[in-house]
């Protein structure tokens, strides 16, 4: 009785503390700490696809954002910019260890970037058009008649 402490000591290596073990397994290594492991290295052993390679983080989200950017009411420049910002973040993570990520998700990442750029450019042209119409024509027509007619 005297050898057993009344509580689970986390510093005791012989103590089978379930929380402590789970913490160590799921904790990703700190950024830049382990050069041979991707930042989300904890997922590598659990990934059943691609022989130990994981998808580039957010690759699918970036691709979806890039594709959606063209349609939704004038939000193209915003969604396109979000896609490009997320792309640059994901690209940095990818470049830390390119071998750790699936080629498929890297292709998706680049496709998302291109779609985001297209959405951003065309969306910006549309915004430019709105500004020209609303500022120049709006003030001109406003002196003649109410904007309500249009």
């Amino acid at each position, binding site marked *: 009785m005297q050898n057993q402490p009344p509580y689970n000591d986390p510093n005791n290596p012989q103590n089978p503390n379930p929380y402590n073990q789970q913490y160590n397994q799921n904790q990703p290594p700190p950024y830049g700490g382990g050069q041979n492991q991707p930042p989300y290295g904890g997922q590598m052993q659990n990934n059943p696809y691609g022989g130990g390679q994981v998808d580039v983080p957010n690759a699918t989200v970036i691709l979806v954002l890039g*594709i959606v950017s063209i349609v939704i*009411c004038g939000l193209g420049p915003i969604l396109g910019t979000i896609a490009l910002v997320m792309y640059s973040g994901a690209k940095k993570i990818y470049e830390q260890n390119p071998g750790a990520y699936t080629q*498929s998700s890297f292709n998706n990442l*680049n496709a998302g970037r291109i779609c985001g750029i297209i959405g951003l450019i065309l969306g910006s042209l549309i915004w430019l058009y709105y500004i020209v119409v609303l500022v120049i024509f709006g003030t001109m027509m406003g002196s003649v008649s109410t904007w309500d007619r249009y």
Partner: protein
Amino acid sequence: MLLFSISDYLLPCPVKQLTGLECPGCGFQRSFVALMRGDLADSLHLYPALIPFLFTWILLLLHLKFKFRNGAKWITYSFAATAVIVFVNFMIKMVFNFHTHH
């Protein structure tokens, strides 16, 4: 029955309500309803980019499921074509809109 109830839940375009000008997505939902009714001509007239857009999405979902070797490239091309149609359609609508009102 489901298809007819869709038209009760369409979202009005905030850009059009605010400015009176159509946005590049205006007509999308009407076009979708027309397509669901089977009226292809009406669908294409309301929003020509709807079918390419849906095609891109189906391609995307299939690619995410089956991971085609050149899937990302196909999606990019499909999206680029869709984007050009959206843009040209928007410009034509805007020019046409001005002509009818002058």
